[in-house]
């Protein structure tokens, strides 16, 4: 059984590609996220507002795309994003 996670692609009002994630992200389901990210091209906003758990396995999937993504995340995830150094490469918006 993998950890529940739903990924919904979409567009921002400004036309930027948007991927909305809801659930938890750990090593059991990073493959799904990695595939979703790989399926997009160019700038992407990844909305993690609905993600309650994110660990280093998830972060590792985000790093290869750091240059082209922006994150929207709830404050609970902030320590993980900061400690991993991702915030130095990527813009993170609070909710």
């Amino acid at each position, binding site marked *: 059984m993998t950890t529940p996670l739903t990924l919904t692609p979409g567009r921002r009002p400004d036309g930027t590609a948007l991927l909305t994630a809801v659930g938890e992200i*750990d090593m*059991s389901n990073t493959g799904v996220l990695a595939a979703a990210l790989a399926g997009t091209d160019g700038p992407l906003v990844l909305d993690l507002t609905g993600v309650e758990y994110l*660990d280093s396995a998830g*972060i590792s999937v985000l790093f290869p795309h750091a240059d082209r993504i922006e994150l929207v995340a709830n404050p609970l995830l902030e320590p993980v994003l900061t400690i991993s150094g991702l915030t130095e490469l990527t813009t993170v918006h609070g909710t």
Partner: protein
Amino acid sequence: MVGRDLALVDWAATTPLGDPEGWPQSLKTTVSILLSSKFSMWMAWGPELTFFCNAAYRRDTLGRKYPWALGRPANEVWAEIWDDIGPRIDTVLTTGEATWDQALLLFVERSGYPEESYHTFSYSPLRDDAGHVVGMLCVVSEETDRVIGERRMATLRDLGSDPSVVRTEQEMLDFARLQLSRNPHDLPFTLTYLFHEDGGAALAAATGIREDHPAAVDRLPAGSETVWPTAAPARGESALVPLDGAVFADLPTGERPEVPLQAMVVPLRQQGGAPYGFMVVGLNRYRDLDDGYRGFVELVAGHVATGVASARSYQAQQRRAEELAELDRAKTAFFSNISHEFRTPLTLIMGPVEELRERLTDADAGVREELEVVHRNGLRLGKLVNTLLDFSRIEVGRMQAGYEPVDLAVVTGELASVFRSAVDRAGLDFRVDCPPLPEAVFIDRSMWEKVVLNLLSNALKFTFDGSIGIAVGAEDGAAVVTVVDTGIGVAAQEMPRLFERFHRIENARSRSNEGSGIGLALVRELVGLHGGEISATSTEGHGTRFTIRLPFGSAHLPADAVLPEADTGAAPFATDPFVQEALRWLPGERTAATPAAVTDIEEGIDGPTHGPALPVHVLVADDNADMREYLSRLLLGAGYQVSTVNDGRQALGAVRAKAFDLVVSDVMMPHLDGLALVAALRADPRTASVPVLLLSARAGQEASIEGLQAGADDYLVKPFAAAELLARVRANIELARLRNHHARWRTALVDSLQEAFFVCDEDGAVIEINAAFTDILGYGPEGLPYRPTHPWWPDARTDSEAHRQVGEAFALLLGSTKGSYTIPITHRDGHRLWATATFNQVDDPDTGRRVTVGTFRDVTAEHYAIQRESALAALGTCLSRATSVPEALAGALDELKKLWRARSVLAAVFDHGDVPTLTSTDASPAWQELPAARRGTLEDLRQGPILTPVADHTGAGILLEFPEGPLVLWMDLGENRPFTGEDQLLLSLLAGHLAQGLNRAHQFDQQRETAIALQRAILGPSRLPDGFAVRYEPATQPLEVGGDWYDTVTLPDGRIGIVVGDCVGRGLEAASVMGQLRSACRALLLQDASPAQTLMALDQFAAGVPGAICTTVFCGVLNSETGQLTYSSAGHPPGILVRPDGVTRLLEDGRSLPLAVRPGNQRPEGSCTIPARSTLLLYTDGLVERRRRPLSVGIDQASEALQDGRDTSVDDLATHVMSRLAPVDGYDDDVALLLYRHPAPLEMSFPAESSQLAPVRKTLRGWLAQCDLPPTTVQNVLVAAGEACANAIEHGHRDAPGDTIYFRAEAYVDNLHLTIADTGRWKAPQPELDIHRGRGMGLMRALMQQVTITPGPSGTTVDMHTRIA
């Protein structure tokens, strides 16, 4: 499991209940309750009482009968006990009322043999759908272990309860026999055999079996295998003997239906030696010979073996004591004989002296004076001899007494009156208050006189101003006589020894130094013969009061010594010596020390013209043999005694060794010439007055003047006429006699002293001694002067301590005007003496120089007697205080070290093999670290005889018996310290005492261990729910288990029952009540009762159990998820709840009376929520209650201890609280304690698969919510834990997915601890994964305060801590 087996039963075919589908609802419900209950139950239903049971019952009780029993009629299942339980079941079925049985004995066959078992159970009715009773339900708890454990514990306790400490072997065996016979269940019969020297064994005691039974055979030859094997126990091994064969027919059954099938033969082991014997124990056939039974039998045999050891060692001690007593008797006999021998010559002296005093009333004053001196001293000596004789008569019980009725006031008043003149002359007030008494007192007049006169003379001796009083009165049916003085009093530390024989108080100021120290001792003996008592009170510097109580009448006296009426004619006859002696102390009387005028004595010397009548001794010193011969011939011819020497040096030695009346010396001699001889003689005060006549060949005025200047008395020039020489000799002797009369008299006096007498000059050199000095110390006058350091001082090198003592005393002598001290000295032949020296400084009237005169009294025997007595007392105190063997041993070693001022004392116990266990007053060394020579000495001692001291130039040692093996003591005394015969005697006495003391302590240890093990076996659940910690500690002293208990009961729905209780009293009775209450309370909680209901039901139960009333109980039910606690307290001290912020709350609601005080009353209930990370403490009063201190102080202390331990695990916290609150000497009441911290730690294990991460996280999230943490902390913990788990899955189990990962989280008050452990092996690094994992590690370290990763061969463990903000 049971459900599945029930399903296999063919109900329709084999039971009247039919197919389960068709069972009534009531039966279905009951069966499901039965199956789901964790408490042991069985039930019977329907016309055949068809049997059902649950898993707990199967496990605890049913044994091999499962699954056969399911669906059978109950009377078939329990056929063997149906006689017991059938009637009870009938009662339930017919009356519909429940039954209750406590610890009922049932012989069940569930293990392949009829087994003695005990069950506490209730039968309650079961009703069908229509409400008719159709069956019964039994809720049961098996109590076999408890009942049998208590029974065995009682036997062991009783065996160890003998109040007499030491006794004979037979008494010990009799006592053991009595105790063993009281437990026929575990010990159907016992036979105790003791080995004899020939290797055979003889029956010493038997229980449970007739003495004429063939199995109780009297003697077993060595190596015999018939009836009982002797070879195995002789080797120290146990053996099992099957009891078949004719000899074992008709054995006792031990109050059971059938005879034992086996017996166990157990050796009575002797530590470090062959067994004393063995014990045959018939075994209860209804119990398995398991470890517990075997251990019990071994302990019983161990007890008896220890008893034998103790009795034998006591016997050895007893023999030694008897030998010493015999020596004492011999001394007394000798004393009494010699005293008798004194009486005849004394009589022959005193008779003529009395006569002379009367005849010479007109003689001149000098003669009268001397007669008085003789008379007084005769009286004094007579008094002393009479007192000694009194003592020996009392000692052998031959004091001839005649008790006559008198008015004690009159007799005492008369006696007092004879002392009036002496008291008046002393200038003291004499108060005599003797009004007539209402009743007669029976006294022996002569004894009573001694009592009163001794006390009065004692008072006078020590009173210098104020008053002396004597009073007679009546009080509480007795006559009371008091003698009071305002004298110097007695120091408090001397009071206990005041009445001791020969005890004198040193340095007391008194009118006289005379006295033997036996007056008061005699007084006490005499008062005792009168059936009375004497006591003394005293204040130093203020005076002393002696109080004598004598009963009225004669009932307390031996009838044959009671005279019908008073002999009125008898007058006091023994007062003279006392009064005479007292008067002599007082001013105005001449004393013996100032002799009468010299002229009187002079008349006794014959006129010199007729030649000497007394032998006159002349020393001739000349190197010329012819001259020596000539002079000798001349002088001998004139009637002188003559000694000759060859030179001045010899002459000097001769004069110092013996008093000569004249020295005739040549001037010219080798070594020391005549002039130098004169100078040397004059320089020594002892020889200064010896007259010297010098002979010289040198004529002329100058030579003569030179000689006279040197101090010669006369000078004669050779050749001389014989007549002239004799004339000069005679003249000089005559002159010297005149001159020296005084000195001679003094010398004679001094030599007659019994004590060693000496004179020291200002530098401390001994310049004069008497004959007794030589007798006592071995040093004669020939060695004078003895300059310090004196040769009798102990050797500074080998006996520095004694040397130091003498040095200090010597400094005192030089620095003070008078004093007294007791010192060790070394006799010339090397043996050790103890002497009391008394000294005074005086001015030498001849020279004006200050000298010190003193005496030595030999007190060696006294010294060692006192030393022995106090050493034994000190050791005794130290042993009686010790509560364990190590403590006793350590204390004893310290005492020995102190006593001998040893460098160190070592005890080596050869408890197993050749490497002993060492204990030392220094840091205990290891055996191999000891010097080889010392190891050898200890080995030799171990092989030698017991209690026989061995000494060498480094120290002394001894071997003693010790329960754990031979014990060798060694005292390191330093090089060449003397270890005398007295030391050896003392060491063997102390070692004997020590052996006994250690034996006692050893028994105490064993009893303590046994008691605690058994109490713990009765107590508490074997597995506690998570989050709990418990402790039980018995009272330290006296060692007894008690009635305190704790309990936790796991209930459905995550609830936990908590009980802490305290039965009144101690000992086995309390423990037994405790066991019953605990079982009952547990059963009630399992039936889902609330705390208040539980306690109310327990009220009813306790009312029926003797000793259970007034038990206090705290009973609570905790919801371990929410922390909700409902509770009720039956008079129990309040629980303490400490919140994480440090606020303490007492659980004081729900409180009511102790159990069974008002059964039937409603009980209140309290409730509270235990906040996250709070700690709950429940306890019994022993934890907090101390004498003279309010309970609240103890509760505050407990709260503080909880606070201090906020960051320790709950188990460590329990240890911390117990040790923090323990009084210095240990708990004096038993203590039970129960701790809970909410929430309980989270523990889980899961397979190493990534799909497990989400559910694990969910559980952790739920637990963290119980911990009441801030959201960020929760998130941090989740991520860190997630990373650790992911790590374990990826690294640890990459090649073995699905292996188990163990996860644990525990909340302390301010800290959270996480542990994640896997069982896999971490693979070699993989760069790609490692970047990723490195990131995970980074997160863990950043999110947690502390991360520790411990790789190991069996897996990797990650520990993480974080502080809770």
